[in-house]
């Protein structure tokens, strides 16, 4: 019951939070000394043409009026038209979504597959050379600028060793979308070649995103395992004469994994944030590049659409994490 109340409360707070977010981003993007109508009109355009565009997109109205209009539109399901791509922002976002999600899912999977065991091993063999090595890697992983790591990987893997493409998502044209995930689509069609190609393209951005995520997971897992190992509960189990192996597998791991699992949602959120910079370096045609380009182009509707969208995902993710935490680990509440 408390859980339900918590979820409901969080859920009810979502619209005001999003409204606040819209207001912030709106204010930020509209005081820009830049002029999207001018940009849109092109470098050889006369003034009158710029004015016409400004009227067309309502950019000549007072700001509060523009804001109210925007919010009413969004509530009625219309996120407006991107000034730059001249298409509905919602269409643009939906089209870009699979690329980002595919990348993020691959990255998080890799991060979990490597990070969890590393964290456990690091805790079990605490203070050995192995533990120190792992910790060094995680400390470095969290301190590395993502864009620099990306460039370093490009320099080595693509330019020096010629193993992976420098950037992009596929050779030219991807498979016709079923899910929009190139790897999945290729598998559904049984097209192994396309599958392998998309993996090659995924490789570098995936690693770039996965390394900081992995470092976080290692830290949490290690701390979680240590926590359980030091608790009276485990001490008691061991005293009861249960073999160490059983204690580790049955109690320590279970408790630690649950703790880590709840962190994955947050890590995933951070990953989406990292995607803005990483996608830009790899020209990955996802939401990150979309956001970055719209900001550079002062494409108001697109910026706000992206922010609203990510904001919803973020809040939703936090909500899920809270619920998961409450369900899996009632002591935490």
């Amino acid at each position, binding site marked *: 019951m408390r859980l339900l109340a918590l979820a409901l409360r969080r859920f009810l*707070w979502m619209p*005001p*939070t*999003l409204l*606040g*977010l819209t207001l*912030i*981003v709106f204010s*930020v*993007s509209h*005081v*820009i*000394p830049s002029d999207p109508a001018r940009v849109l009109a092109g470098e050889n355009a006369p003034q009158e043409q710029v004015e016409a565009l400004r009227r067309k997109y309502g950019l000549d109205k007072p700001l509060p009026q523009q804001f109210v209009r925007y919010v009413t539109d969004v509530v009625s399901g219309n996120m407006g038209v991107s000034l730059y791509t001249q298409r509905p922002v919602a269409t643009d976002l939906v089209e870009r979504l699979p690329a980002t999600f595919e990348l993020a899912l691959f990255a998080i999977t890799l991060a979990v597959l490597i990070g969890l065991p590393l964290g456990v091993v*690091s805790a079990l063999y605490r*203070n050995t050379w192995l533990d*120190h090595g792992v*910790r060094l890697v*995680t*400390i*470095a992983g*969290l*301190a*590395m*600028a*993502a*864009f*620099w790591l990306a*460039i*370093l990987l*490009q*320099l080595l893997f693509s*330019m*020096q060793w010629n193993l992976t493409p420098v950037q992009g998502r596929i050779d030219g044209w991807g498979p016709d979308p079923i899910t929009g995930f190139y790897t999945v689509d290729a598998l559904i069609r049984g097209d192994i070649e396309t599958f392998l190609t998309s993996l090659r393209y995924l490789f570098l951005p995936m690693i770039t995103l996965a390394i900081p995520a992995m470092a976080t997971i*290692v*830290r*949490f897992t*290690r*701390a979680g395992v*240590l*926590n359980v190992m030091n608790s009276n509960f485990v001490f008691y189990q061991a005293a009861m004469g249960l073999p160490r192996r059983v204690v580790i597998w049955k109690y320590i791991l279970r408790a630690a994994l649950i703790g880590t699992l709840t962190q994955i949602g947050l890590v995933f*959120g*951070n990953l*989406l*944030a990292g995607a*803005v*910079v990483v996608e*830009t370096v790899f020209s990955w045609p996802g939401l990150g590049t979309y*956001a*970055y380009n719209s*900001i*550079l182009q*002062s494409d108001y509707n697109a*910026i706000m659409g*992206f*922010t609203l969208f*990510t*904001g919803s995902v*973020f*809040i939703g993710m936090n909500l899920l994490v809270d619920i998961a935490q409450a369900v899996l680990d009632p002591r935490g509440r």
Partner: protein
Amino acid sequence: MRALRRLMRDRALVTGTVIVSALVLAAIFATPLANFPSHVTGFDPAFRLKPPGEVFWLGTDRMGADLYSRLLFGARLTILISVTATLVAVLIGVPMGLIAGYFDRWYSDLLMRISDVFLAVPQIVLAIAIAQTLGPAIQNVILALSATYWPFWARIVYAETRSLRNEVFIEAAIAMGASPLRVMVLHVLPSIASSIIVRTTIGMGATILAAASLGFLGLGAPPPTPEWGRMIAESREFLPQAWWYATAPGIAILLVVMGFNLLGDGLRDAIDPRIRRGS
């Protein structure tokens, strides 16, 4: 076992302190340390894109300026940006967290909801939007970062203040007739100072990373400012030949951020041994 752990913990603290001190020293003594102090703005096009060697220890950039000298001067900028931005964020976040945590009125919730709004979207996205709006300049980077990072302090201070509010010594102070301001500043703040310091040290690392990202995306200080992120961005056009151009500033960022993170971890253990170490 305990001694070993202590050693490890201290090692983090020592390494962090060494790196951060090195950064500060590099910033202070940039001019005497640099081989070409004039290369902050000057250069020699005849020596453009030279690999590391005896004259140019870390090679030269696209204009023919010594990268080693520029990295040193970049340290100044890094400190300026991260310290100022973090300080401003602390000055906004801590009072907000204190007020929201200490009182239990309608505005407590409101203040925390406002910080939630800022946390509802990736920090870097907001920072990019603000920096782009204000135009590329150092002070705008600082503003963009402090405007987006303050909620972290607000949150941590809020949580700590909340948990302290029912402590006996706070209640005693209130019973003695101390004003809320007095209680907050003289009783609550000292008790949570360690958390704030730890958070701030780690926050410095995050700020440096974010500032470098803004520089990399072309939203930081304009050329010829020796900003590390910008230097990496400049190098991309000349890869893979000019590998040193991208490598050197990246390592500088890595080391400095690592230094602050280690220092933060070390401080946390040293100040508050109750908190179990993450790694």
